[in-house]
């Protein structure tokens, strides 16, 4: 019929696709066979490069082919460098042979030749970069392509790192959540010495486009502590910047409470920073004439590597070796004969930290204790921001009393503002959360136990039974911070 066009039926289309697939497979096998043959003959030439392109463009994750390309590239470079060397020696000979008059033109020629060779070298790198770019179009998450790109750039002393940063900009415009690109960005922006301010701005722009982006928040958390250092080191960054960050992340959370990425970032902000502390911070210590026990704030791989000394005016005693008592490696023990004279002043030195020890009136043992998370005071400015945020959360709870996210955030904010006065209220929020979010009740109960224990430990040094008796708070389903209790003789429940 006039104007009607004939279209394949689905059956015919399937048949056609099948045939096409067969042909493609044939071409693929043919190319692979040829590649293997050539490799066995060590023919690392342009044909080889061409063969790998065809396959890689369609399937960029065949590692062998990238390896072959690297072999080819290295050989090409070696050959070029050889030519450059040969030219140089020949030129030296020529200079010796020729008279002064000819020398100038020879010099010019030599410059030209050098330039040509340098260009050839650059074009080898360029080909590799372009190929990876095209492969990344096929699969933006191709590990092999990203790796080959890094390799190529590392080979080239004149690599244009700036261009790589721009490339990341473009790639992240299409997919702002591709963590491969974010990783690559950190790598190249360091190479290109991109100022961290600029990186932070970039991050901010990406978050503005879409804040459900773990990579971007994470990138941010790496930049901020260096850009805006916090001198006391009890917060992740300077208080002024922290205030801005808190506002931004709370806005994200108010916009979409179900977004967990903002969430994680907020917890990081409200935390004390320095999560991955490498130094061992002493939480509690106790020593008797025959042994010593040491508890650390966070786990440490091998305490024996550190110098631990018991110091008094008269002598300095090395405490060695240490054995971990618990699997978290926070509690350690050293069996050694230790002479204690209770009337003297003793200090504990752990990798340079000096702590004054007290004497347990009960058994004359020496001890040291500091409760976990001593509340750090914050500036008026930050305090005001936290209070504003808390107020926003409480306002919202009027509208949405069961909002899980708001309940937890407000609890966290309360503790950041004043642990003591908000202790009960923050726990009541957790109790409510256990009801409205049964799925995560384990988490809330755990948190509740931690907070309760923190409070009990913080109050303990002022109690009359300290340090002999620690009264375990009631209704503890688990006992976090148990390693702090080495100082106590008795634990009542």
């Amino acid at each position, binding site marked *: 019929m*006039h*104007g009607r*066009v004939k279209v394949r039926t689905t059956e015919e289309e399937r048949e056609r696709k099948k045939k096409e697939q067969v042909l493609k497979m044939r071409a693929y096998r043919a190319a692979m066979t040829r590649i293997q043959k050539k490799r066995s003959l060590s023919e690392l030439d342009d044909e080889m490069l*061409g063969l790998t*392109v065809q396959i890689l*463009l369609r399937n960029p994750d065949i590692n062998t082919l990238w390896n072959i390309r690297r072999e080819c590239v290295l050989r090409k470079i070696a050959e070029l460098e050889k030519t450059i060397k040969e030219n140089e020696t020949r030129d030296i000979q020529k200079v010796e042979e020729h008279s002064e008059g000819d020398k100038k033109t020879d010099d010019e020629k030599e410059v030209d030749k050098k330039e040509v060779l340098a260009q050839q070298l650059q074009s080898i790198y360029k*080909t590799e970069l*372009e190929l990876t*770019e*095209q492969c*990344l*179009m096929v699969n*933006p998450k191709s590990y092999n392509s990203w790796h080959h790109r890094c390799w190529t750039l590392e080979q080239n002393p004149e690599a244009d790192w700036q261009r790589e940063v721009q*490339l990341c900009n*473009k*790639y992240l415009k*299409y*997919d*702002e*959540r591709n963590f491969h690109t974010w990783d690559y960005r950190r790598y190249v922006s360091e190479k290109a010495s991109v100022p961290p301010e600029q990186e932070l701005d970039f991050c901010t722009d990406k978050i503005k*486009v*879409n804040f*459900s982006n773990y990579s971007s928040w994470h990138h941010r958390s790496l930049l901020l502590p260096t850009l805006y250092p916090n001198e006391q080191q009890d917060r992740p960054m300077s208080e002024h910047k922290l205030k801005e960050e808190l506002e931004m992340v709370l806005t994200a959370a108010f916009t*979409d409470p*179900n977004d967990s990425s903002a969430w994680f970032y907020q917890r990081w902000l409200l935390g004390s920073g320095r999560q991955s502390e490498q130094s061992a911070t002493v939480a509690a210590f106790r020593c008797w004439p025959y042994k010593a026990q040491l508890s650390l704030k966070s786990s440490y791989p091998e305490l024996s590597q550190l110098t631990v000394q018991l110091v008094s005016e008269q002598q300095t005693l090395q405490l060695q070796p240490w054995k971990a008592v618990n699997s978290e490696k926070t509690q350690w023990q050293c069996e050694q004969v230790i002479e204690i004279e209770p009337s003297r002043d003793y200090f504990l030195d752990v990798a340079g930290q000096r702590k004054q020890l007290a004497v347990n009136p009960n058994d004359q043992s020496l001890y040291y204790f500091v409760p976990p998370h001593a509340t750090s005071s914050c500036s008026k400015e930050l305090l005001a921001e936290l209070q504003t945020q808390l107020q926003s959360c409480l306002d919202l709870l009027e509208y949405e009393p069961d909002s899980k996210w708001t309940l937890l955030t407000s609890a966290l904010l309360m503790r950041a503002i004043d642990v003591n006065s908000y202790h009960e209220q923050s726990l009541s929020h957790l109790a409510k959360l256990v009801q409205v979010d049964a799925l995560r009740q384990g988490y809330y109960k755990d948190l509740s136990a931690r907070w309760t224990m923190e409070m009990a430990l913080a109050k303990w040094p002022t109690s009359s039974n300290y340090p002999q008796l620690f009264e375990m708070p009631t209704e503890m389903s688990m006992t976090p911070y148990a390693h702090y209790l080495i100082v106590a003789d008795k634990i009542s429940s």
Partner: protein
Amino acid sequence: MATRKKSLLKVIILGDSSVGKTSLMNQYVNKRFSNQYKATIGADFCTKEVVVNDRVVTMQIWDTAGQERFQSLGVAFYRGADCCVLVYDVTAPNSFKNLDSWRDEFLIQASPRDPEHFPFVVLGNKVDLDNRQVSTRRAQQWCQSKNDIPYYETSAKEGINVEMAFQTIAKNALEQEAEAELINDFPDQLRLNSENNRPGNADNCQC
């Protein structure tokens, strides 16, 4: 992706009715020739993957769909062309004379940024026929006078020079596109059926 845009080249074919525009396209893309094609029915555009300078690009060749027959090609047809192929019939002097007006029409309607250097390619088609009326020299002269437009004499019927002509077209189009991308005229143009437009995730209110 950085090169995503570059990888699609839009080529349009212009020239009088029945000079063989559709046949050339069909010969190139489908390796077919049919004398039956009268007016262009069902001919829209063809896509073909080509390798230019070691890279695979998709060339989209747009036919006039017969709208040139009564001088009724709309301006929309010309939008965003990376290369313009002008075709005449070597046995029809009028179709050669009209190349001038086709070229002018293109420059007016498409209004490329740099009209002096916009890539055209001229094809003198139907060289397989005996009654040739336009000499190679005449055609070459015209092409030279217009900033050295590449010129090929083709036969869509016999497949003469078609492959080579389109290679040149692809190459020149790619160069044009590379320049156009630097200028980056209108960022974020959207094609409705394309997957690439989505902002990468569902950034909407459906929490």
